């Protein structure tokens, strides 16, 4: 679709016989985008393709209207990248490292030093900016990594597992920082296998599994589309499932409960009618649509 901020079209990447990405397509708007998948799903390969550090076997990627394969240098001028692993020189100060990376991104030296100071202030490292990075805790290193990623005022920043290795407090702080980036006009692609992080921060999500697209789209819409009702009617679940099936409602037993596909208020009304008609007890009726795990599992199963 024209006007997409991040457009991935039929992207395939093979390393010899290994298929890292397989015919991946997605169209995404500016904002906070979660890239979800298990280890080995192809997230790092996708990041390398977005950065123009590797060539696609077929297909292409456009970021803000620029084809990455055709002009990777132009793309990297406006991109920030925060790898998962430790990647900063340990014997240099945070201020020196961040200003150097700002200069490498094309900013004049004086501007780079000023912005490094501002950004380190933003991530909460203002008082530690002249300390060697080797003396930093894991949380401080993650924040320094984020600082170097955004110091050049990128249009898009790629964050690879930004909360990895952080304690609960550090994780909360990092997610707060990430969610603030959109207010600065910086779009984010956040790679993670923690679906809670995505649900909390991201307004769009791309799920991949074994190099293939599972599902992509706005987070809220994906959650709404996978709504389920969970019913506890005691032991007589098979009678209810049969009656619901006769009405065309998808229902199944899960852990002695009945799970019904929920398409809205009409579904609730019909389910209640059936239960009353069968004179079954109703101990509990709850919405089961609250988790991106369900979205992932449902779509992954369907894709297989």
């Amino acid at each position: 679709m024209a006007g997409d901020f991040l457009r991935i079209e039929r992207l395939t990447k093979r390393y010899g016989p290994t298929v890292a990405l397989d015919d991946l397509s997605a169209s995404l708007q500016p904002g906070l985008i979660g890239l979800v998948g298990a280890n080995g799903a192809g997230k790092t390969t996708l990041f390398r393709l977005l950065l123009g550090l590797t060539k696609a076997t077929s297909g292409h990627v456009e970021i803000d209207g620029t084809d990455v394969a055709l002009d990777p240098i132009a793309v990297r001028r406006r991109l920030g990248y925060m790898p998962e692993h430790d990647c900063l020189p340990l014997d240099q100060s945070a201020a020196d490292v961040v200003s150097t990376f700002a200069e490498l991104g094309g900013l004049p030296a004086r501007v780079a030093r000023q912005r490094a100071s501002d950004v380190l202030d933003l991530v909460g490292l203002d008082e530690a900016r002249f300390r060697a990075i080797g003396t930093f805790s894991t949380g401080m290193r993650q924040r320094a990594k984020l600082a170097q990623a955004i110091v050049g005022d990128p249009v898009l920043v790629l964050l690879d597992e930004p909360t990895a290795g952080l304690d609960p407090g550090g994780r909360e702080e990092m997610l707060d920082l990430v969610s603030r980036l959109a207010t600065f006009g910086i779009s984010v692609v956040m790679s993670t296998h923690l679906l809670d992080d995505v649900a909390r921060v991201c307004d769009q999500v791309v799920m991949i599994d074994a190099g293939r697209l599972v599902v992509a789209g706005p987070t809220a819409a994906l959650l709404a589309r996978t709504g389920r009702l969970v019913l506890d009617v005691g032991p007589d679940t098979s009678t209810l499932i049969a009656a619901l099936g006769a009405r065309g409602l998808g229902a199944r037993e899960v852990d002695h409960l009945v799970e019904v596909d929920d398409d809205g208020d009409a579904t609730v009304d019909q389910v209640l009618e059936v239960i009353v008609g069968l004179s079954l007890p109703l101990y509990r009726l709850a919405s089961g649509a609250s988790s991106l795990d369900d979205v992932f599992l449902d779509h992954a199963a369907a894709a297989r």
Partner: protein
Amino acid sequence: MSTTGAVYDRSYRPYEGPRGGRREAIGALTRATIRRALGLRRSWRQKVAPFVLLGIATVPAVVAVGIGYVTRNLPNVDRIAIIGYRDYVGVSSALLVFVAITAPDALCPDRRQRVLPLIFARPLTGIDYVLAKVGALTAIVFAFSFLPQVVLYVGNLFVSDDALGYLTGHLDVLWKVPAAVTLLAVFYAVLSLSIASLSSRRIVAGASIIGVILVTSVVSGVLVGGSDDGSPAALLNVLALPLELRDLVFLGRIARESGLSGVEGGGALAVASYAAVLAAGSGVLAWRYRWAER
């Protein structure tokens, strides 16, 4: 006191100013490498080695000028030449140690501390990275070899009885020294960086640089032996190879004391070998950083 004024949000400001590309990124990486090698913006411990070695390399110039100063008014004493400009463009132990420290420090931490993915996420290619590192080390080795020459020249100028006469009598030095030092600096930058690029450990890389230089020197010395006619085997001596080019700059021919003296076409062979070492070193560097655009 006025209470009016603007309130600024220092937390984040978009950047709308000029933004450079590859050339600016290469320049930035070159400057960062030079700062790192000289220990600038780092703790005082990192500054000790480069500046102590530079001081040691400058000692002969200071001694030469000092003797010239002390003996300037003595009658019947000819000018005592402790060291000449040509000899001073040489490979000293201080230079070898300097190169063996700075070249690994320029490359190894980037690989060992996994900084390379961050660098290549900027508008740089693998070749740009190599250019920046070679440029930085060439500049550093040039400064290391050239500054003592400046001390020697300026010092001689001042202790000379006739400064203007000294200047006009040594005009050729003004181009020969920079040219010879440039040849030496480029050679040692490419050679040492190509060796350092093969390891992520500074100590291994530094020892390898010293080892390659000394082993080729010894092997060449054994092969050349005591031959008065010289031998092409002298070309194997990477320690002496840039000095052959230095002699071509200063003397216009291979020096008599060189192992190549007496070898037909020795000068051309030296130039070809020099170029071959540079080409091989550049090839190794390009190969080691090719993955950035794979």
